[in-house]
């Protein structure tokens, strides 16, 4: 295991301290909790947005805490949902009287821990709503099972719900627009290499020198297909065909694109992928409103990337275009 760390047991605390040291104007850490909140939280009258999950997906979620996006990011142990008491602290710290929206990625653990935190908050008289993001089309959808995983599309929920809250939306309105994003966002990823959870010290799966995994999860959950490495264009075609067929698209539709590096993917390769994404969309007559390229929802040092498409209407476009100023997401 080659890592720039001191002690696997302390990675989350040291990371959060290093983050606050870097961005004191943006964020602060709740003493005794692995919770990052806006430096100026709570903001009176504004709906508070709380997201979080296991660590190892940086900059998600604490990196998106700031004006126009989240009010708090709760950091669990690496790849492990945070516990309800941590989430509850976050909720209390950011509630400005207008209620708090919990943005949850659809994993059993995350859903249950956030739910319990929500119950705790409601017992204290804080209005809480929640949305569950499930954008990963690699996983078959079914109401009888856990359903799809939440991956990089979550960042669009942060952005758009964040803009709505910043604009003064009520808890109900913010929740409604978050659900609209969830209904319109689809993602899928692939990996060239696994990653190593610091405390485990060994890779979550193994891939031969000429193999890749398609559709794996951001915690290294197995994917839908293991194949020989393909060319970037072929990989993009495969991912895009899954993403584009999961929602009805027609010429003239507009989308936001996100190419999300999983941790070890050179930016060069992310741009090469976007080149093909763009060509495919052009062929289909789908217009790209905005593109995001970089690391948004990583899996430690996994090599690979995910593609996310968010289908836009006027409301979503306006909210996506609104400014945001956070450590890891800035837009004028």
């Amino acid at each position: 295991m080659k890592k720039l760390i001191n002690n696997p047991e302390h990675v989350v605390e040291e990371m959060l301290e290093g983050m606050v040291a870097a961005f004191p104007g943006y964020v602060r850490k709740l003493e005794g909790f692995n919770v990052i909140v806006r430096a100026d939280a709570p903001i009176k009258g504004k709906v508070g947005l709380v997201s979080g999950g296991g660590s190892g997906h940086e900059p998600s979620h604490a990196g998106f805490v700031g004006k126009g996006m989240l009010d708090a990011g709760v950091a669990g142990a690496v790849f492990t949902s945070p516990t309800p008491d941590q989430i509850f602290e976050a909720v209390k710290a950011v509630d400005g009287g207008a209620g708090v929206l919990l943005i949850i990625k659809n994993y059993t653990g995350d859903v249950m821990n956030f739910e319990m935190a929500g119950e705790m908050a409601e017992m204290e008289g804080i209005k809480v709503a929640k949305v569950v993001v499930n954008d990963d089309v690699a996983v078959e959808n079914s109401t009888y099972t856990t359903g799809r995983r939440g991956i990089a599309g979550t960042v669009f929920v942060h952005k758009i719900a964040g803009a709505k809250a910043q604009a003064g939306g009520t808890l109900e309105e913010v929740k409604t627009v978050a659900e609209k994003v969830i209904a319109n966002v689809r993602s899928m990823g692939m990996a060239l290499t696994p990653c190593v959870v610091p405390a485990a010290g060994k890779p979550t799966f193994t891939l031969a020198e000429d193999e890749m995994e398609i559709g794996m999860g951001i915690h290294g959950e197995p994917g839908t297909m293991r194949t020989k490495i393909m060319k970037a264009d072929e990989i993009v075609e495969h991912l895009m065909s899954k993403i584009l067929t999961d929602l009805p698209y027609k010429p003239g539709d507009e989308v936001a694109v996100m190419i999300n590096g999983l941790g070890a993917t050179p930016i060069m390769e992310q741009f090469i992928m976007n080149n093909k994404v763009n060509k495919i969309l052009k062929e289909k007559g789908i217009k790209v409103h905005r593109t995001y390229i970089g690391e948004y929802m990583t899996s430690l040092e996994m090599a690979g990337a995910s593609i996310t498409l968010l289908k836009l209407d006027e409301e979503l476009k306006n909210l996506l275009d609104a400014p945001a100023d956070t450590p890891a997401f800035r837009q004028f």
Partner: protein
Amino acid sequence: MATDTAGLVKILEAVAGKISENREFLTELDSAIGDADHGINMSKGFSAVLEKLHSQKIDDCGTILKTVGMTLVSTVGGASGPLYGTAFMKAGQAVAGKSSLDFEDFVTILDQALEGIKYRGKAQRGDKTIIDALEPAVEILRKEKDCTDKKAAMDKALNAAKEGVEYTRSIIAKKGRASYLGERSIGHQDPGATSCYLMLQAAIEKIKEMSGKGC
């Protein structure tokens, strides 16, 4: 067959010990169809439980169980934290104020634990979860609530839990992280069902040991 708060703590110590002994085994099971942390999470939680229980003397069985539940919730994380946490908290509510527990209480505790897990996780039997071990045991105990041979009833219940664990090998996971595997989850024993069986085993052994010959 009855136990006071000290006895309850002893039972919980046995449960914690069992989990700690099986840390690697549970993690290994989870690595096949999950994310290889079930043993780690659970033993971290029960270490915290032991610390908590030893740092204060609680003279109410309900509060003891609620404390266990709250500690698990705030230390385990993942799926099993809220599930087992809710289980213990619900069980604690059901015996709130009692300074000793009898066989009937034991049945109530497991019954309420099952309710808690179902409420929290929304899974049902056959989804390849904790429930596949717990529900068969609870069903037997409910029927045998008024039996005379409590020990035999507990053994029967434990055996049913064991069979439930075996059964999880043959089915597709529909809840939890293993559900992403679909068909590929078949053939693997569920970590949560296994930890549930191990906890029952430790508790029942300790109860039998403490109650000497007969109840």
